[in-house]
């Protein structure tokens, strides 16, 4: 008499369990991106003023559009607004070019009301990719929104 046992049901069971565990459990912890906001300065005089030559503004618009300009935007001297996208040849190249011209660039990131959260993550990610040291997330100004409207981009 043979002592062989049919192991097929056992294999069935083992793989059933395997599939169950693979589907119901989480394996990897999610990745996170760290975002540190500046500590609020109580005294306005202690805040450092940004030099015009170092300022670079990125506005996240609707429909995944990115607007950007160098320097300041005032009523007397409206900034030269340009538009690009989030692709690898879009805003990333713009930042890299800017860093070459002005290594001390400070980027002001302004999300427009119609921007989506994905855009914000993308832009912050570009800061990591391009090793941009100084950047800040600020509220979009009315003058910036007007500039976009006027430029028709």
């Amino acid at each position, binding site marked *: 008499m043979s002592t062989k046992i049919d192991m097929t049901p056992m294999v069935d069971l083992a793989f059933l369990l395997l599939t169950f565990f693979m589907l*119901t459990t989480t394996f990897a912890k*999610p990745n996170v991106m*760290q975002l540190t906001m500046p*500590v609020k300065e109580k005294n306005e005089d202690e805040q450092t003023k940004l030099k015009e030559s170092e300022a670079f503004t990125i506005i996240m618009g609707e429909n995944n559009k990115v607007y950007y300009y160098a320097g300041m935007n005032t009523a007397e001297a409206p900034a030269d607004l340009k538009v690009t996208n989030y692709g690898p040849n879009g805003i990333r190249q713009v930042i890299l070019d800017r860093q070459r011209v002005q290594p001390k660039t400070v980027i002001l990131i302004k999300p427009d009301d119609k921007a*989506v*959260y994905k855009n914000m993550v993308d832009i912050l990610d570009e800061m990591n990719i391009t090793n941009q040291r100084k950047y800040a997330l600020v509220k979009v100004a009315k003058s910036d929104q007007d500039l976009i409207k006027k430029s028709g981009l």
Partner: protein
Amino acid sequence: MPKVKPHRTSPSLDMTPMVDLAFLLVTFFMLTTKFAPEETVVVDTPSSTSEIKLPESNVITLTIDKNKRVFFGLDDDKAKVATLQKVGAKYGVTFNASQAKAFGNLTNFGVPIGQLGSLLSMDADQRKAVAKTEAGIPMDSLNNQLIDWVMEARKANLALYKKQTFIAIKGDGDADVQTVQQVIKVLQEKDINRFNLITDLENKPVVTK
């Protein structure tokens, strides 16, 4: 001439190594993973190149879905129950033992505190059914419950484990930035300036300077 019959062997094969392998994998999955918590809302997180992992414990998760709703979640059951009692006391809402237990098992929730009691009395299926209609936690300047939840959760966690909590913001890719900024602003008013944005991993592109 008689036909030459090929010698037939029995098709049964030795499955022992296969069973070994399968059980090895089962054991591996049982030991290294933990059960995926049931999510109240489905959130499709955007991807980034950041490779930092979320810490294992002491995490407050603020989920923001695409309908501008904010959900609050804390990973530890004990701290969660303590938080519930504190916030309840502040708003004059009391919870019984079974409701507190249900709250401990909840991954996150998004209702104003007044409706929390009835949400906790429901069973899991009913809760799933109302998840779509939950309003999110109020966080406007007149009725800012979100900050109370966060502050009490931090205090409760600190008292229990002597460890600071991490704030993780889990936003949907289509959530609008205004809501995210509002959450950040609310927390910044209480001097919380460090945030972790939960993202999926994508490969870091090569950048030429």
